[in-house]
């Protein structure tokens, strides 16, 4: 009978997810009842998210495990839940604005698809059981396959969803196989028991490397880090822009939460944090894998992005590169690294959503996201152009923007005397210099180059709401760039994993 009482206790701290599920169902019903396309469904969805945000706030100081060791509530998960709610609310608003979505279907299914992906993300952030991880990953992936193919009448969108599906299926298959081997060796699905087992028994090198690589494949696909990134450019370009934004921000953030929790808890020697650093099992050098992946992502992301013609594809590569930067935080395997990663994630959220929103506005007006078409656009939509310039500069990490602060903390984490990853910091800085090229390319074509007919074309006006949204995205990018106290404090307090003191 104790199971029953235990389930009851778990449920009442499972409220955020429950509220997401109820809003999902409500939206589903509302969508069916309301004949034509209307914003009411989105409003319900946003209301539901705010309610779950309230519940998450209630959990902010709690550290406990639920459903007999399936899920866990800790500041780390809370931070990510905040991130998911904030980004999905903004994405819901994006969906309202994008014309691509308006023409695609006459109903607005996207609202509860987004909610399901948020649910998946919530679970990814807090699951500590291999099965639970796989299940939440699958839920998130399935929803994103559907979303990728949302404007089904368009060739590009369907092609992107197909590619995403096949690639996703393959990598989750590989991950599952890796998990089966791990399960076979350690005999349990719960990562804490796995870490105790691995700490006590000697692990053969070949086995642990293969398992780690296979699991990394599954997670790498989610955070679109090299060499598991091949789907990213095509899917980002093909699927509708709000979906791309959603993938770039929320789903990759979920991927990061999973990869961090998995690597930082399973391969842990002891649960004490020794002067800030997680004590890693001597034998297992998983940091090297992450370093290789991170450096590869930075280099591929930045170098190939220079070549891109389409803005969405460029942002795709940029998110690969940014993923590479964030992994750098994980490599250091100590609280500073973790905090730096969390700071960068929040910075990444604002910058990217901003950049994508401008892309949506441009795609609405020009119909294409080809950078060549954008010559001299800066003059026709000055405010939006300037906003884009700010987001681009933030992404490249120029001081006085939130991007710089993210990078600054990452570099300080890497250059910390103990860590000794000086060369890594330099690679990171060099890459961000290279990234300056393609970020500035967009600004250059918008402002400094002049299409032959720029002067005759009339100035483009957007609706007032779009200006408000733009300002709401601009303010954090610059304000937190100058006064980054709150972000750093939040990240610091949430760099605490369950079970590790």
């Amino acid at each position, binding site marked *: 009978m104790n199971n029953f009482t235990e389930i009851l206790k778990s449920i009442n701290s499972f409220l955020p997810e429950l509220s997401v599920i109820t809003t999902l169902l409500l939206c589903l019903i509302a969508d069916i009842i309301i004949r034509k396309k209307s914003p009411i469904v989105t409003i319900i969805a946003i209301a539901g998210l705010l309610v779950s945000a309230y519940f998450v706030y209630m959990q902010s100081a709690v550290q406990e495990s639920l459903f007999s060791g399936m899920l866990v509530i800790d500041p780390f998960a809370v931070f990510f839940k905040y991130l998911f709610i904030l980004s999905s609310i903004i994405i819901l608003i994006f969906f309202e604005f994008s014309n691509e979505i308006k023409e695609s279907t006459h109903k607005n299914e996207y609202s509860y698809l987004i909610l399901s992906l948020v649910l998946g993300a919530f679970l990814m952030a807090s699951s500590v059981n291999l099965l639970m991880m796989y299940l939440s990953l699958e839920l998130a992936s399935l929803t994103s396959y559907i979303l990728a193919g949302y404007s089904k009448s368009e060739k590009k969108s369907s092609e992107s969803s197909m590619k995403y599906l096949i690639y996703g299926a393959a990598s989750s298959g590989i991950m599952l196989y890796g998990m089966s081997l791990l399960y076979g060796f350690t005999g349990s699905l719960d990562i804490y028991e796995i870490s105790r087992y691995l700490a006590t028994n000697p692990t053969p090198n070949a086995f642990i490397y293969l398992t780690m690589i296979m699991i990394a494949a599954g997670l790498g696909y989610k955070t679109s880090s090299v060499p598991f990134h091949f789907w990213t450019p095509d899917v980002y370009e093909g699927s509708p822009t709000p979906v791309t934004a959603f993938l770039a921000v929320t789903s990759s953030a979920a991927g990061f939460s999973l990869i961090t929790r998995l690597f930082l808890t399973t391969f842990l020697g002891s649960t004490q944090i020794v002067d800030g650093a997680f004590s890693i099992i001597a034998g297992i050098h998983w940091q090297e894998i992450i370093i290789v992946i991170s450096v590869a992502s930075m280099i591929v992301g930045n170098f190939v992005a220079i070549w891109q013609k389409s803005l969405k594809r460029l942002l795709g590569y940029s998110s690969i590169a940014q993923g590479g930067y964030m992994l750098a935080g994980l490599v250091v395997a100590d609280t500073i690294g973790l905090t730096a990663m969390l700071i960068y994630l929040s910075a990444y959220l604002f910058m990217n959503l901003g950049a994508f929103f401008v892309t949506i506005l441009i795609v609405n007006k020009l119909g294409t996201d080809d950078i060549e078409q954008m010559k001299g656009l800066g003059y026709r939509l000055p405010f939006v152009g300037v906003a884009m310039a700010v987001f681009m500069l933030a992404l490249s990490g120029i001081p006085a923007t939130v991007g710089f602060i993210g990078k600054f903390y990452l570099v300080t984490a890497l250059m910390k005397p103990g860590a000794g990853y000086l060369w890594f910091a330099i690679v990171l800085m060099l890459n961000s210099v290279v990234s300056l090229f393609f970020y500035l390319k967009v600004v250059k074509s918008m402002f400094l180059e002049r299409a032959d007919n720029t002067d005759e074309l009339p*100035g483009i006006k957007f609706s007032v709401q779009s200006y408000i949204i733009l300002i709401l995205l601009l303010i954090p990018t610059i304000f937190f760039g100058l006064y980054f106290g709150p972000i750093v404090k939040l990240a610091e307090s949430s760099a605490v994993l369950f079970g590790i003191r």
Partner: protein
Amino acid sequence: MAELKILGIGVLSWMVFLPVLGMIIVLALPKSQTKAIKYIAAGFMVLLMFISVYMLANYDSSKAGVNSLEGLQFVEKVTWIDVDFPAAMIGKIHIEYFLGADGLSFPMVLLTALIGFVGAVASFSIKKNEKGYYAMYLFLITGMMGTFVALDFFLFFVFWEIMLFPMYFLIGIWGGERRLYAAIKFFLYTLFGSVFMLIVMIALFFSSKDPQTGLHTFNLITLMNPQTFPPESFFGVLGNTWRLLAFAGLFIGFAIKVPVFPFHTWLPDAHVEAPTAISVILAGVLLKLGTYGLIRISFPIFPDAARYFMYPMAILAAINIIYGALCAMAQKDFKKLIAYSSISHMGYVLLGMASLTTIGMNGAIFQMFNHGTITAVMFLMVGVIYDRAHTRGLYDFGGLANKMPKYFAVTMIAFFASIGLPGLSAFISESFIFLGGFNNEIIRIVTIVSATGIILNAAYILWTVQRVFLGELPTKWDGLNDISVRELISSVPLIVIIIALGIYPSLFINLMSNSVTQLISFIMK
């Protein structure tokens, strides 16, 4: 520490953030209201001038606050970023929003306010999307003003970077034909420099330990006293290689801005391509940031390195003077000629500083101010012809003296001021620099060599006067009308200042002499 507040906010914060307020108002105005935009921008500049006069009124020139906290005036200190990593080695990052003015920076603040106003009036000739232009212009003023008054290295660096972008766009969008090339060249040069500054800043931060709070600090004043660097840190031991390297790094960062010989090629391009008002600002104030940085940061923090590098710096200064003058002689474009003359004049400033004598340093800062006013007038004058004749080639003109007598008079005053004619302000500063340079035995020969500069300067200026003003008037310039009232408003105040300071320089010298004596005694201790 004299506190001075207007409506509760420190007067220096007003000076720095008033332009931002202006920018916001300008941005709010619709694009079509060009007239309103122009006058609002100029209005803000006038406001800035009033505040600077108000500050001048209760500026206490007896105080000398280079490295002593009490000596500083209009001080504002608020913790800006106070973040600590509990378990990490970095410990607390404590950065303050620390503004202050003393003998070194206050003259420069006045110069910025003055040149800012002049530039705003001169920008009325910009016809292409004024809104963007004035927004960028006001933003640039904030960057410059902030750099002059910041006393925290991080804040200094942030303002130093902020200044970069408006300049890039101002040259890049409103410039001449090769504006793109010039803008990028300017941007990359300064960025290259600021990389060195960043490295040294971080090194300073990590190796400093504030005696009171035991924390790492960016605060320039605490960095100045040697106890802040514990013996085992990079900069612990006086005169060790790290300190020399750091000084060299900072020097490169600042030398690009001055510009000093090997890094100077961006200046002519930037000037030729920038619109008139922007080259006024560029020459009037931006070049001074490099030299100001030297005396505010590298000299007081690394006095031993300053003494060590005295001779190489003097050599570079001499090269700057001679090389700048020689290049100026061979130029065909009016603006490029003035650009090279600025290189030569900034060489004087560097020479004054390298002498590390009170009279030399006083001369250097006075020359910084004079060069600001004189070159500003010269660029305004070039702007006058360019607006009318749309060509800057020296060989296209001739005989303008009769056609435009008032213009001829103002330009002659500016030209003769630039070659250091007594009775005008530049003579006093130039002679100070030579006297200072001569008094310092080590760089005596270098001073004599660079004194030949006064002959070369005279040569190319007179050659230009002859080419442009004397001789017959080519027929195509018959339509030129004399200097307009607006142009006079922007240039006459500067001319009055040049003459006034020439006759009675103590107006300026009293402001800075105590601080300079303090600085020199601190360095040579």
